């Protein structure tokens, strides 16, 4: 099938989806408060933007998102490298990892609130934990998977210290694998953003909870679509960055 036909099919599918969604509440088959039709969304969106609530919530959530992502991914890459490079580090941490790894990120919410209060730091903490494990395991695996032959090249040219091995060979060779982990974390982190904010930290999640308690379901939808849009933008940006970083690949 040509690219054009596939695009056309995808567009047609979306159009049918929107049409059915529009029709159900309009025909009275569903309560309009419970399922607002898509045609109601632009007006709700404009109201939110004009009041300034949309921008403030989005900026707040983005700042949680990016900070949490940076902290979690930074720690994940750092500790993943240590664990991938040094068997001793891996052995010492093996059971700690096994103990902590299965704990869902959201199970940390009580502690996040005890330690940080209902503050941005609590949201950052929750997001960072979710991101950390994904990036940690991706990095550890990618570092360990580096072809020994490549490491031998570094040794053959006299680069024998662990640091030289890391900088000259391991890190560039592991970059594709690390980036796959980070990309997975990009999606995971949005989930954590909403979860953290639903508990009251100011941002998109909190705004959705407010709207829902007022039965302003059209506003809830505005933020759901906002998140889909933001995620799409961030992911597209990341893929562009990834393609540039990995431009050496066939």
């Amino acid at each position, binding site marked *: 099938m040509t690219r054009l036909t596939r695009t056309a099919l995808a567009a047609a599918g979306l159009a049918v989806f929107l049409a059915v969604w529009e029709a159900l509440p309009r025909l009275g088959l569903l309560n309009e408060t419970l399922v607002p039709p898509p045609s109601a969304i632009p007006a709700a969106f404009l109201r939110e933007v004009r009041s300034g609530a949309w921008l403030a919530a989005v900026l707040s959530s983005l700042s949680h998102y990016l900070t949490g992502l940076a902290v979690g991914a930074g720690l994940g890459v750092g500790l993943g490298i240590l664990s991938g490079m040094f068997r001793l580090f891996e052995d010492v941490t093996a059971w700690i990892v096994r103990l902590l790894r299965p704990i869902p990120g959201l199970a940390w919410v009580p502690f996040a609130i005890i330690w940080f209060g209902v503050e941005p730091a609590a949201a950052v903490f929750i997001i960072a934990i979710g991101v950390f494990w994904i990036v940690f395991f991706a990095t550890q695996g990618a570092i360990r998977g580096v072809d020994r032959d*490549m490491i031998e090249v570094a040794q*053959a*040219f*006299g680069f024998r210290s662990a640091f030289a091995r890391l900088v*000259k060979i391991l890190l560039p*060779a592991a970059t594709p694998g690390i980036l796959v982990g980070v990309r997975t974390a990009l999606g995971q982190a949005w989930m954590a953003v909403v979860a953290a904010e639903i508990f009251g930290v100011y941002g998109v999640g909190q705004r959705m909870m407010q709207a829902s308690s007022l039965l302003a379901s059209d506003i809830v939808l505005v933020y759901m679509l906002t998140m889909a849009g933001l995620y799409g933008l961030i992911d597209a940006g990341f893929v562009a960055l990834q393609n540039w970083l990995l431009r*050496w*690949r*066939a």
Partner: protein
Amino acid sequence: MTATVERGAAPVVGIRGLSLTYERGGSRTEVLRNLDLAVHPGEFVAIVGESGVGKSTLLRVIMNLASPSAGTVTIHAPPDDGRAGGGRPESALVFQDARLLPWRSVLDNVTFGLEWRGVSRAERRRRGEAMLALVGLSELAARWPHQLSGGQRQRVSLARALAVEPAVLLMDEPFSALDSFTREGLQDELLRIRAATGRTVLFVTHDIDEAVYLADRVVVLAGQPAGIAAEIRVDTAQPRRRADPVLSAFAHQLRLELSRRSSDL
């Protein structure tokens, strides 16, 4: 670039009483036993032997990538070669499979071995470009390794090794994975570069004709554990002709040595 060829001077590579035993899971395999070899300045020595006889292991020991169980390996860089940058290796290896680093451009691969303190970026670049010119790939400097043919990759690998101006250039079956046209082209290329730079070369191969065509001296590695079974000086001046019956006679002699050795086992 000039290099002094001093016969009778201290060898560039001096190997004495070298033995190597691998220990793996309680079982010991003796790979090399009591091996002596001297490679003199400017000399081109080929080591031939069957696959798995320990040729690559010997190179790994010379590179200090593996430790001998007994014996010594010394490498003497000529004192006047003005080497800059502490810690730089005295030997450089051309791997059988080129082993370029895929995330580096061709030029950055060539300058890889120069990334030591004391070698400025400009100097690295200048040397890298000179080496690429030497192997005839100047116009490919900005390419990625995956965009090169097998022969081009091996040229870059050669340039990378030459760039560090090693006291001895080690080559581990560097042309064996190439088709015969490319291989013969690269053999002649290597001889031209060696004539131009005067490099000392230690060349491992399982191809007897290749050894005889390239080397001043061919050493036969055979046995289990392996030792030097025979040594032939190919005293025919370069450039040589591949079809030269004198070379065929040397090759025949080497084949006899090898078959005699393997029937001993």
